[in-house]
């Protein structure tokens, strides 16, 4: 796990063609071909249906094939357009908050542990081995009135009286940070760990303070890790449904809920498909932007 990388996938140095024997080439083609075939069958082909259906007409719980842009028009109309923008702002801020919490943790593991490093990482990952839903349900109970968080905050004098954090935006953000923290820590850790120590020592020797070294050396060099962490947290956050429902009282609908309710409640598959295609396009644009942002730093520590 400690090696999840953050280098954009398409900027790898070209391989030198020395392993060109026919049998070797066959092996290479198999190694690339089998995954491609599997993903084409079980991922791309079904995705194709969504694209086709997004141009179709709705018959309650079914689709009549056609070529109409009505679904896209509805999906982009006032209400859903606003929901979409709100969702992006929400995912961006939740992801930023998650990163802000994760960065010091990753920094601590990379710089201040040596003998116990494996333990430090394993402790971060262990929560992953219990059911996500159960953990969020427990978080709900911990945060409820008369719950454990209320008791602790009262004892510590950080809060007095009943705690009414459940069913608020704050609770949703706490839940998001909780759920995605490990995913953000790991890529940050990998990049921080790769920054050569002599580089930092050189910076200190040249008279930079710790803060300056961090701001002008460490932080810029960890940009690929930040980009990966944003990618791995913000994208699933765009579609997150469970946390807003369990901790946020289902107020202020996000795109994930709007999308799945088209499929599961209205039984309007064409409109749901059109929304899905639009979400995909938007994410692709964001990811392309992120990749561009990190390109110059791709070769860090290789």
């Amino acid at each position: 796990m400690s090696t999840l990388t953050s280098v954009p996938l398409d900027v790898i140095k070209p391989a030198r063609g020395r392993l060109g024997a026919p049998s070797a080439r066959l092996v290479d083609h198999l190694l690339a071909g089998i995954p491609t075939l599997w993903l084409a069958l079980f991922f791309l082909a079904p995705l194709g249906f969504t694209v086709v259906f997004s141009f179709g007409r709705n018959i309650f719980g079914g689709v009549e094939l056609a070529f109409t842009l009505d679904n896209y028009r509805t999906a982009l109309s006032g209400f859903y357009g606003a929901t979409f923008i709100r969702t992006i702002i929400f995912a961006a801020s939740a992801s930023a908050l998650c990163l802000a919490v994760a960065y010091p943790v990753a920094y601590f593991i990379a710089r201040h542990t040596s003998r116990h490093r494996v333990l430090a990482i394993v402790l971060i990952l262990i929560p992953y081995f219990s059911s996500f839903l159960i953990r969020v349900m427990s978080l709900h109970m911990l945060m409820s009135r008369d719950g454990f968080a209320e008791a602790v905050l009262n004892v510590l004098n950080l809060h007095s009286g009943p705690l009414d954090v459940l069913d608020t935006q704050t609770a949703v953000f706490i839940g998001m940070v909780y759920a995605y923290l490990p995913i953000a820590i790991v890529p940050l850790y990998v990049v921080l760990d790769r920054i050569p120590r002599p580089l930092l020592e050189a910076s200190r020797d040249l008279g930079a303070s710790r803060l300056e070294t961090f701001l002008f050396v460490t932080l810029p060099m960890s940009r690929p890790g930040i980009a990966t962490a944003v990618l791995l947290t913000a994208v699933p956050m765009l579609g997150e449904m469970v946390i807003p429902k369990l901790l946020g009282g289902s107020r202020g609908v996000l795109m994930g809920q709007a999308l799945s309710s088209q499929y599961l409640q209205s039984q309007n598959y064409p409109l749901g498909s059109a929304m899905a295609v639009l979400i995909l396009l938007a994410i692709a644009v964001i990811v392309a932007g992120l990749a561009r942002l990190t390109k110059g730093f791709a070769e860090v520590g290789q």
Partner: protein
Amino acid sequence: MVDRSSPPKSLLSRRTMLGLLGAAPATAALSAAFPGSLRANAAGTGQLNIYSWPDYFSADNLATYAKKSGVTPNITTYDSNETLFAKLNSPAGAGFDIVIPSSSWIKQLADKGLLAELDHTRLNLASLDQDLLDRDYDRGNKYSIPKDWGLLGVVYDPEATGGEIKTWEDFFKAGERPEVSGKIRLSDSGWETIGTELWLQGKDWNTATVEEIKAAGERLKSFAKHVKSFSGLDPNAVANGSIVMAQTNQGTARAAIGLNPKLKWSVPGPFSELWVDNYAIPKNAPNVDQAYDFLSFMLQPDVQLAETKYVGFPAAVAGLREKIGADTPNADLIFGGKDLDFKKLTSFVVNPETIGTYLQVQTEIQAAAG
């Protein structure tokens, strides 16, 4: 999704799709690699597949049935009627013998040809509560027989609301009080929120037009700022006062009142909802005989009594209320209170023309609360 009853010409033909995908052989090969995984259509006896809400049958009753018949019911669970509909309307629905749709979705399931007509000669319907039979969502109970039922009502703290909630108007008025505002739970189902205003306007939620639904929704949208939650109600949240007024069913209300006796329950007027969860047999169910055998077992009065105590909602057999012992706390609440008037109750029937509007407006209400 394919409408099974219609000729496939409106869709890409199946063969083209297969050719396009080449997926069938791959999946077939794959399923050969997982023996026992694809026996959904294996016919014959010795099996019973039920699709239901989680934890919706008394474990003791299921064990008794397994001992009696030698067949252990295999229960798969869903989270909403909509999921049930989507599943039955797809290949994933093949292989179920009994499903438990709510009154609201029976008509749509039947219209889509997804349910089998019931053979009444094989079931004893005479013992059931006649108030629950022959209702407008399934005249003559062609496709469904009631399993248990519940109500849309309000559980509230009378100190906060400053009085009783007798009508939905009282509910809206109470919601504006500073003690109540921001501590309200509304249903996440569009017809249960918008329906209240439709009833106040003297309209029927099953015949309301798209415009009427949207107009009624406006009141809910402006009310939304007082609402704290649309999620499933935790009885604890009402008991400890983080929510002081909530739309909910009588089962959750009973749990809350069990925790905090000063809370009150009411079924506001002029109308409110009666929902009935029903047994139904899907078309092409593989084990029909087993299904009827199970249903006859479930309809026995003592089994129904045990179900009621376990599930917390009243089963459909007549005269249950008298049979519930004094050892059951707040037994009256199981039946929605002492003086429940069935004439003031109405059941929602999903209509493809308006359901999209109900859901759309509900989404807007929830967004307005954010």
